[in-house]
C-alpha cells in the first residue's frame, strides 16, 4: 500500500508536467487508483481533491483535459466550483462539461444552468446540450428562453435540449416557440420526441394532441409522415 501511495504521488507529479507527447503510462497509477477507490469513499475523495488542485493550478491544457476525464468518473459536488469556472473558457469549456454532465449532483446542473447567462455562441450550444443530456427538468424555463435566440445554432440546441428533457413543460415551451426558420425543423423534431415520451408514459391524448398539430398540410412531408405514424401508434395502444 505504501508502494501504491508512492506511485500515486509520482503520477500526480507527472500530471503537473503532462502535455501532448508525454508518456501517458506515467499516469497509470491514477487510473489504477480510480478503480481501486471504487468502494472507498474517503480515498476517492482524497484522490478527487488532488485532481481538483491540479485543475486549479497553472498546468497545460492537456493536463486539465486529463483531470476532467478523471472527474467525469469520480467527480462529486466538490469538483463543481472548479469545473464551473472553465465553462466560459473557449479551450476548456467542453472538457468541463465532460465532467459536469456526468456528475449526478444538483450543483452540477446548477452550475451549467448558471453558465447559460454568461456564455454565447458555440459555448452556449454546449451548455444547453449538456443540460439536455442530463434531462434537467429544472432548467426548462431557462432553456426555453434560448429558443428565440438570433443564433440559429443556439436556438436549435435549446430545442434539442427540450426534446431530450421531454417533460410536459418542455413540450409546452416547444409548442409556444417561434424560432428562426433555420431552427424550426429541430423544434418540430423535439415536439415529436415529446409526443413519443407521452406515448411511452401511456398519455395517448397528450401525444395525439401534438401529432394532430403536426399532421397538417402546412408542415413538411417528413413531419407529416412522422405525425401520421404517431397517430397510428396512438390508435394501436390499448386504453
Amino acid at each position: 500500500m505504501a508502494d501504491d501511495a508512492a506511485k500515486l504521488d509520482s503520477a500526480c507529479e507527472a500530471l503537473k508536467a503532462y502535455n501532448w507527447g508525454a508518456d501517458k503510462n506515467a499516469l497509470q497509477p491514477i487510473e489504477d487508483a480510480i478503480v481501486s477507490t471504487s468502494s472507498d469513499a474517503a480515498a476517492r475523495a482524497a484522490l478527487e481533491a488532488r485532481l481538483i488542485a491540479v485543475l486549479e493550478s497553472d498546468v497545460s491544457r492537456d493536463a486539465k483535459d486529463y483531470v476532467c476525464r478523471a472527474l467525469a468518473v469520480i467527480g462529486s459536488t466538490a469538483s463543481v466550483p472548479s469545473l464551473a469556472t472553465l465553462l466560459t473558457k473557449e479551450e476548456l469549456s467542453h472538457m468541463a462539461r465532460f465532467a459536469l454532465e456526468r456528475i449526478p449532483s444538483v450543483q452540477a446542473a446548477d452550475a451549467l444552468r448558471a453558465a447559460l447567462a454568461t456564455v454565447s455562441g458555440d459555448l452556449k450550444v454546449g451548455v444547453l446540450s449538456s443540460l439536455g443530456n442530463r434531462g434537467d427538468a429544472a432548467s426548462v424555463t431557462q432553456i426555453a428562453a434560448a429558443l428565440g435566440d438570433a443564433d440559429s445554432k443556439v436556438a436549435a440546441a435549446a430545442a434539442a435540449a427540450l426534446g431530450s428533457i421531454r417533460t410536459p413543460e418542455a413540450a409546452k415551451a416547444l409548442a409556444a416557440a417561434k424560432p428562426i426558420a433555420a431552427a424550426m425543423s429541430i423544434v418540430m423534431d423535439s415536439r415529436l420526441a415529446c409526443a413519443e415520451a407521452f406515448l411511452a408514459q401511456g398519455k395517448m391524448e397528450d401525444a395525439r394532441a401534438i401529432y394532430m398539430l403536426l399532421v397538417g398540410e402546412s408542415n413538411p412531408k417528413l413531419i407529416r409522415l412522422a405525425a401520421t405514424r404517431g397517430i397510428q401508434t396512438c390508435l394501436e395502444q390499448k386504453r
Partner: protein
Amino acid sequence: MNHGTSSTRREFLKTATGAAVTGVFAAPYIITSKALGDDTTPPASDRIVMGGIGIGNQGGGDQGAFLGRGDVQYVAVCDVRKKWRDGAKDRVNGRNKNSDCAAYNDFRELLARDDIDAVHIGTPDHWHAIMVIEACRAGKDAYCQKPETLTLREGPLMIAAARRYSRIVSGGSQRVREDFNNLVGPCWNGELGAIKSVNVRDFGPLSQLCNLPAQETPADIDWEMWLGPAPWQPYNSGRCDGNFGTGGNSWRSYVDYSGGSLTDWGAHLFGGATFASDVCELQPTAAVFHKADGQLGAYVTLTYPNGLEIHHRRPDQLKPEGPQIDGGKIQIHGDGVKRDPKPAPGYKGGGGIHGDFIHCVKTREKPFRDIELGVNTMVALHLLTIAYRLQRTVKWDAATQQFPGDEEAGRMVDRARRQPWFLS
C-alpha cells in the same frame, strides 16, 4: 389527410411529367438512353440516388459495392480528407463516365440535397450516431458501418430517429450473416437443441487514451471536422490514419473515436454469436466480471433474459460438457435435445448486405441488420467494455436503458460532445 401529394422535387417532377427527369426542368430536354435504362439498368426514376460520407478504407469498399449496382445512381461523396474525397469522386466519375459527382467536406451539405435518397456512412465511430440521426431528419435512409455506436445513449436515439421518420437504417456487418454459416445451420435447424451458452474467444484490446504529440496539420485535412464531437486534441497522423490498427497507429486505438478492437471485431463476432443463438432482438441483463484466478484469466459473461450466457474469453478449462459446435472464434453449447427447425433470416434481394439495404430502401421493409439489431449487439459490447474498465459486474435494464442503482457505471452511458455538435 391527403397522402397523394409529395413535396420532394423528384417525386413532384415525376408526377408532373410522367417521365424520368433528372436535370433542371427546361425544354427541350433530350432523354438519354441511360436515363431510360436497359435490360440491366433500371430507368433513372427507379434508381436509388446515393451519396457516401466517410470514404476511407471501409467506406471505399462500401462505395464500390453500391457504385457497382445498376439500381443505384451514385451522385455525391463527402470526406474531410481531400485525398479520400478526390479519389472517391474520381471512382464515381469513372464509373458514370462523366464528371458530375459532387464532392463535399461538410456532410450537412450532402444531406441537404433533395435528390439524394440514401447515404452510406463509413466515418470513424464517433461520428456515426450524429450522422445517422441527421440523415433520418433529412429524410434519407442510411447504411452505417459497424460499430454503429460509441456510447450506450446513442443507440436508442438512432433507433428513435429511424422509426420516427420511417427511415431504413441498416448496420454494416456483413460477417454476421456470411461468416458463421457453420454455426447458424445447426443452431437454427434445431440439431444442437436449446442453446445454453456461447463463448466468443479472445479478441481486443480496448481502446485507450491518445496522447500523441502535436504535428503540423496538413493542408488536405479539415481537422476540426475530423474531430467533430470528439474532444479537441492536436493533429497527429497516428490519430487519424490507418483504419483497422489497434496497436496505437490509428484512430481505432483511441477511446475518443472508437471502442477499440473489442467493439470493432466484437461487432462482427458478437453479431454472429447473437444471431446464431437467436438473441439478436434482446439486450443482456448483466455483464458478470470473473476475476483472474491462478491460471485462469479474467473473463466476462453476458447474461440474457432467456437464460442464455454469452462469455467473452472464457478459459478452455471451464468449457462445459455436452453437444457443441466449435467455429474457431465462437463455440456454441446446446442441450442436444433436437428442436423443430426455424428458418434463419437472410438478406432480402441479391447482392449481400448492400443489396439487402437497397432492396429495403425500395420496399420499405426492415433490413437484415436493422439498426435495432446492430444497437443490441453494441449494447452487449459496451457492457463488456464497462465491466472490464471497472473490473466488476454491472447490471443493465434494457427497458430504462440504465444501470439500476449503479451511479459509477451510469456515468459511462454517454459523454459530452464538443460544441457545436450535440446529440438528441
